[in-house]
């Protein structure tokens, strides 16, 4: 942690960055995101196993953007998110300092190549319970899946916490806020919820970096992350493309290969 504090201090003092997005102590045993603009507060930063939230979500928030050039304390999934954001023209590696901590050594990832190398070396590993959920659903019949999701989604009341927590949901006007035409029913009944969630999955297909922020954010405990994870799984299986690996990759869903195969188009 020492190294992290030192690095943060240097960055702020040198004026290279104006804000450091990192983790700090929260209430109880929890950690919370902190935004440090003063060198003397650098020691508020913490780094341990509890630091898992995907802080990249703050990078595109206007109130954070206002603060100036940011440095971000990055977990592997944050690095992936940043790469994905770069590939979608939402960030430039030259306008951000990415700090990764390995064995109390802090490294700066300052260009696309170093971000990509880091991402390639740190694959996302799901916690066992997620692996189990994925497996359970995969083994269900289509009717069981229908019931499963109808039950789960019936709790959704369209608070859009999932949207707010997702670092890749950065549209300035969401599809749901568009009423000409009304693509997604406003009401949080079964149809409206279904429309919202399948759109979210389709929009994140081949983009979701599987950080799980949406599931954590859901106040009624719907495992909605599974939907976007599935969408990305389909993309990887069918087109061999994974998000968060290449800064100049075309999005899997807006590109194609002549050799793409399917069996259902007659």
């Amino acid at each position: 942690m020492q190294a992290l504090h030192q690095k943060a201090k240097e960055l702020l003092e040198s004026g290279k960055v104006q804000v450091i997005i990192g983790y700090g102590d929260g209430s109880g045993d929890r950690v919370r995101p902190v935004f440090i603009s003063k060198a003397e507060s650098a020691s508020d930063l913490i780094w341990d196993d509890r630091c898992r939230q995907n802080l990249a979500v703050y990078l595109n928030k206007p109130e954070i953007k206002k603060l100036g050039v940011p440095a971000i304390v990055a977990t592997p999934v944050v690095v992936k998110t940043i790469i994905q954001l770069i590939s979608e023209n939402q960030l430039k590696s030259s306008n951000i300092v990415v700090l990764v901590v390995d064995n109390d050594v802090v490294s700066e990832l300052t260009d696309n190549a170093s971000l990509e190398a880091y991402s390639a070396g740190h694959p996302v590993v799901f916690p066992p319970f997620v692996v189990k959920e994925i497996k359970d659903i995969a083994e269900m019949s289509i009717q069981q899946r229908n019931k499963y999701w109808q039950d789960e989604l019936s709790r959704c009341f369209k608070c859009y916490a999932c949207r707010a927590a997702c670092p890749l949901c950065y549209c300035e006007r969401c599809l749901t806020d568009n009423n000409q035409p009304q693509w997604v029913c406003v009401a949080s009944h079964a149809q409206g919820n279904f429309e919202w969630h399948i759109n979210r999955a389709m929009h994140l297909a081949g983009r979701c970096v599987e950080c799980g922020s949406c599931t954590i954010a859901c106040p009624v405990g719907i495992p909605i992350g599974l939907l976007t994870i599935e969408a990305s799984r389909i993309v990887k299986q069918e087109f061999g493309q994974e998000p968060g690996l290449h800064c100049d990759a075309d999005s899997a869903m807006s590109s194609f290969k002549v050799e793409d195969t399917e069996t259902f188009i007659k």
Partner: protein
Amino acid sequence: MSRIGVFICHCGENISATVDCEKVAKTLASMPGVAHSVDYKYMCSDPGQSLIRSAIKEKKLTGVVVAACSPRMHEPTFRKACAEARLNPFLCEMANLREHCSWVHAKGDATTDKAIDLVSMLVEKVKRNKPLFPIKVPVTKTALVIGGGIAGIQAALDIANAGQKVVLVEREPSIGGHMSQLSETFPTLDCSQCILTPRMVEVAQNPNITLYTYAEVESLSGFIGNFTARIRKKAKSVDEKLCTGCGECATACPIKKIPSEFNTGLGMRGAIYVPFPQAVPNKPVIDRSRCTYFKSGKCKFCASKCPAQAIRFDQQDEIIEIPIGSVVVTTGFNIKETSFFPEYGYGKYKDVVTGLQFERLLSASGPTLGEVKRPSDGTVPKKIVFVACTGSRDPAKGIEYCSKICCMYTAKHAMLYKHKVHDGDAYVFYMDIRAAGKGYDEFFRRAIEEDHVNYIRGRISRIYERNGKLIVRGADTLLGAQQVEIEADMVVLATAAVANDGAESLAQKLHVSYDAHHFFAEAHPKLRPVETNTAGIFLAGACQSPKDIPETVSQASAAASKVIGLFSNAELTREPIIAVVNRTAPPLFSTCVGCFMCQSACPYHAIEQEEIKTREGKLIKMVAKVNPGLCQGCGTCVAFCRSKSIDLQGYSNEQVYAEVMELLS
């Protein structure tokens, strides 16, 4: 409030025989927003059209639905009628009651119900139609022709002779291309250089043509009528204005042993050279990668001998930018080298040559002055084997197509060989003879019947050298695939014609499509054979697929006529069915967040990145912007846009949504 007019056509009895047209008109009349609904026997007839025109005026219609035949048939007719009544033509839609309803269903309520559905769906759509106006773009009347082979020469001359300006860019030091390397041409056996070189000179002298040799296209931006080409003029190291083309420099150059590209490695050239005596321009260039001065800083023999003092060692590459209205791509082809063929010795046998090398051996201007001699020892081959389909039609080697020219030039080779070596034996191994063309089959028959060339149907398995002879192992498939072994003095491989080096990167610079073999793709194989999918860029010759000279020249003239046609207008008019990115009030400016997924989705590279800035020039955001000159209106971008910030005029989100909702209401 919409005031839609609905016009149900009986199409004689074509529609009314199975659809109750009167009922359709009546039902529609009571639909909200419909101000007028009638049926009539022939809507497309003059009285029918005037029915529409007068209703527009009298009922002050804001939109029209004509329910008749397929819009692919009469949409232009009815839109024109609306325009005549001063209703924007894009406020007129057609419901297809004939092809999609009356002709495919039996008479009955279900059919009439369907007709009602189809019409009401279009009524809901047309309520949301917006007036659209044809897009006009200006035209720069200069054509860029890329590649100075026979295709480029023909295209450039045709365009120039029609009074338009042409910029012709050639990568090599001279124009002429492969045709200048050929000996005689089938099926007439006229001398290739004799017919080509006058055309080359014409190019140089035509005031409408600007010729850049030793130059390449760096990039092309813009769109039809309004391209900008960046051209790199590679340093020739010679001041062309001063050079008189006397050739003293080439004589002076101490380096003499560089394999000549023009002579396919069978002859030599110096480091400063003119590729061949009839070159246009007939001025030398220094091959810097081979020049002693450029390698070691010493020599300058050429400069010391140049009477005009035209050598410029310090010359730099020059980039020029030219506004261009249209492009003709004529970059031609190449052939596979013998080294590509493992079973034929990986190119290690000197007397196994390609067809193009054999052309040089036959050519009077070639390294042997037209005498057929073995490259290894200079003896005259008495037994020679020609192998057709070497690499062509060979999926295992990655080339599944037919190279098209080999059957004919192989027959020509065998024939010319027999004419020159009377006591020689010529064998041709072939799979099929493809001699479709005027006088072609007769030509190849002559090789067999008059010149006694031995044609054997079968492919060669292997060639190897033994005692200075080439052992050729084949089979005669017309004799039960019996093995044939020939001890030949020389073997000529009709190797596959492939896309020219750099075709892929050029295609990417021009944004034109190309196939798996890097041949450029035509817009439609039959009906648009010289157009590309990028408006304003045309193709001719072997860069599109292997072809012979007559076909190449026809295509070049065709492409030229397309350019001339384009240049005959002061400006271009295009249908306004294009995508548009929304613009809103500040601070948002547009709901587009600039993820540019649409950019990779667009087949036409029509989406650009636009910077929205404050008045002080500070960047606020990047948004997508559609170039109306390039957009063809497929709408693929629209379906990708997550925030629905891009929409397609004529098929907008609101319009198609309304259609679905109405249909199932």
